[in-house]
């Protein structure tokens, strides 16, 4: 027994050859095994030898069903094994709740595997029962709060079964624990878009951003979220929220070293550009102010606050000069 098989698992994945005496296993062709050869264990070769035979014969049976379990335990990334298992689930009328328990275990052991999440989705679709799903994804996210598969799956549950009630509280609690959890912020936006995003709700969300920025001004997650909110408000026709301008100006004017986040500065520069373009032919004084401030900020970014992207800030400087050359 190789050291890659634990003694706990070995019995559940070993083949009982007596059970299979009527079927010959099919070996993998040696010739095609010459390149990228994996040092398969004897047990792996046994299990997949019989699985190849089962596929060729299109066998629908209990022993084939058990065989798929052994195969996915050995390699949960083999999508054909999962696909065949789903066929057997249906043909044999297997208990889908029991299958859900099984896939729960396998996801727990392989939380970043695509196929196991896909299988869970297929089972839950057949069951049409989402009652355990939010709790399950929450548990996985407790182990890794940014697990991309878990978030993607949770979003599918929310949308497919219209389960939105718990979401705001859920993301708020995650953000309270870690206000830099970008996955939680993304989920918050997702829920907003799919439920109530009226003007009053978006205003509330803007205040929520200010609250988090007051804890840490240099949080890229919040700046991105804030920009998303502002874009949405403008798109809905409610105009650019004044309090966002006010908040940015306040922070910039305070001039405290640790308050001058590069995200705050570039947020203001982007705002200035939009306004300057808007007012280019109507309000020369306002444009002059935007231009001067932006040039000052771009130099600050390039020289002091975000030097790793100095080449980019210098390039933006040249863009400003090009667009507003009459103000220089």
């Amino acid at each position, binding site marked *: 027994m190789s050291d*890659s098989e634990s003694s706990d698992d070995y019995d559940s994945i070993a083949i009982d050859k007596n059970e299979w005496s009527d079927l010959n296993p*099919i070996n*993998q*062709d040696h*010739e*095609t*095994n*010459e*390149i*990228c*050869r*994996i*040092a*398969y*264990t004897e047990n*792996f070769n046994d299990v997949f030898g019989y*699985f*190849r035979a089962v*596929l*060729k014969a*299109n066998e629908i049976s209990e022993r084939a069903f058990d065989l798929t379990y052994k195969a996915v335990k*050995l*390699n*949960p*990334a*083999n*999508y*054909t094994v999962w*696909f*065949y298992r*789903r066929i057997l689930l249906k043909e044999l009328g297997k208990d889908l709740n029991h299958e859900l328990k099984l896939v729960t275990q396998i996801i727990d052991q392989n939380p970043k*595997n*695509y196929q196991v999440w*896909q299988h869970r989705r*297929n089972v839950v679709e057949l069951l049409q029962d989402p009652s355990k799903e939010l709790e399950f994804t929450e548990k996985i996210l407790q182990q890794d709060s*940014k697990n*991309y598969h878990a*978030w*993607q799956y949770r*979003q599918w549950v929310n*949308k497919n079964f219209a389960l939105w009630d718990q979401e705001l509280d859920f993301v708020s609690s995650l953000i309270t624990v870690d206000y*830099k*959890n*970008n*996955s939680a912020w*993304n989920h918050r*936006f*997702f829920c907003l*878009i799919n439920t109530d995003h009226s003007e009053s709700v978006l205003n509330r969300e803007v205040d929520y951003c200010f609250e988090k920025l007051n804890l840490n001004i240099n949080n*890229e997650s919040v700046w*991105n*979220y804030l920009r*998303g909110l502002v*874009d*949405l408000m403008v798109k809905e026709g409610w105009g650019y929220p004044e309090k966002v301008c006010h908040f940015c100006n306040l922070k910039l004017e305070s001039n405290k070293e640790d308050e001058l986040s590069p995200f705050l500065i570039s947020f203001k520069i982007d705002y200035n550009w939009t306004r300057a373009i808007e007012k280019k032919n109507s309000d020369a004084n306002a444009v002059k102010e935007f231009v001067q401030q932006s040039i000052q900020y771009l130099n600050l970014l390039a020289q002091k606050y975000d030097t*790793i*992207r100095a*080449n*980019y800030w210098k*390039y933006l400087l040249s863009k400003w000069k090009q667009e507003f050359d009459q103000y220089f």
Partner: protein
Amino acid sequence: MENLVYDPEIIEKRKKKLVKYLRQILCILPYRIISLDTSKMLLTYFSVSGLDILNKLDQLPHTNQDIINWIYNHLISENIRGIESGSCGFRGSTTLVVDQNKNVQNHEYDCSHLTMTFSALNALLTLGDDLSRLNKRAILKSIQALQLPDGSITATNQDGENDVRFLYSTCCVCYILDDWSYIDTEKAFEFIHSCLTYEGAFGQIPGAEAHGGSTFCAVASLFLMNKLICLSDKEIHCLKQWCLNRQQNGFNGRVNKPTDSCYSFWIGATLKLLDILHFTNYDDNINYIFETFDDITGGFSKWPGFSPDPLHTYMGICALSLVNFSNLKKIHPALVISEDAYQKLKIIHENWKN
């Protein structure tokens, strides 16, 4: 203090170790990578192309022709029942092959995988194959069968995921086979566009978090389809800033996450396609990539001190090529093969036209 990363002797030593690591992939692999059993074609592509970019294709552990023949053994050119079932293309391995004749679908559950088809084509081009053994129509008809109403594409005909990764593989295949008539590129654009998030970059599916890997897949797909211009000025601006903001020293793949060497490639290539890679700090990037170099095994890993793997090793090599490190071959930033391999493709396209 001298930066040893640029020391010519150190570079030579490291190249030798990388070559050894890449050669090993094509020979024998330990059982603990069993989850890659269905992705051997991807590993072959990483190894062959990695050696090519390092200018060491002459050090393959097998002849070009042996590897080419091995690759073609994975090609399904004919469906079992003669009806279109989305199964033609290249398999990732022969794990589920049961017959001697490998170029016909062996049984109902024998199918190709889009990423493996893409990998096979890239490896074949790098090895100098002229693609004449391909049944282009069969492959393209299968891809057509795999495109869904929302424009996305599933990797296989076995209930697989349909995210932006497979749209990328598809665009590469269509580009290489020089035929876009089997997919709806308008719908493909719509799907990609729907993956844009409030952060300005792309998630894997609509609603999912903006991510470096999916952003590369989206941007490279748009580039290959000639549809980058379909994004608005504002969208391009936000996309550029999101990508540039991923650089910490190396790059991360999502906001507020740790750096990982593979994003030096995913983000690096995206920035190259957007024509702004030169706004990044090359030295910091190169230094970070080499911090993940494992001196004993000769591969790159995601983080310093972590175990290396074929993906991060290949991505590391590609990322270094993008920033003109040493005398690595230049790469095509969307197809992710060397310029040499890309030139061979252009000749093949010429021949097809005549």
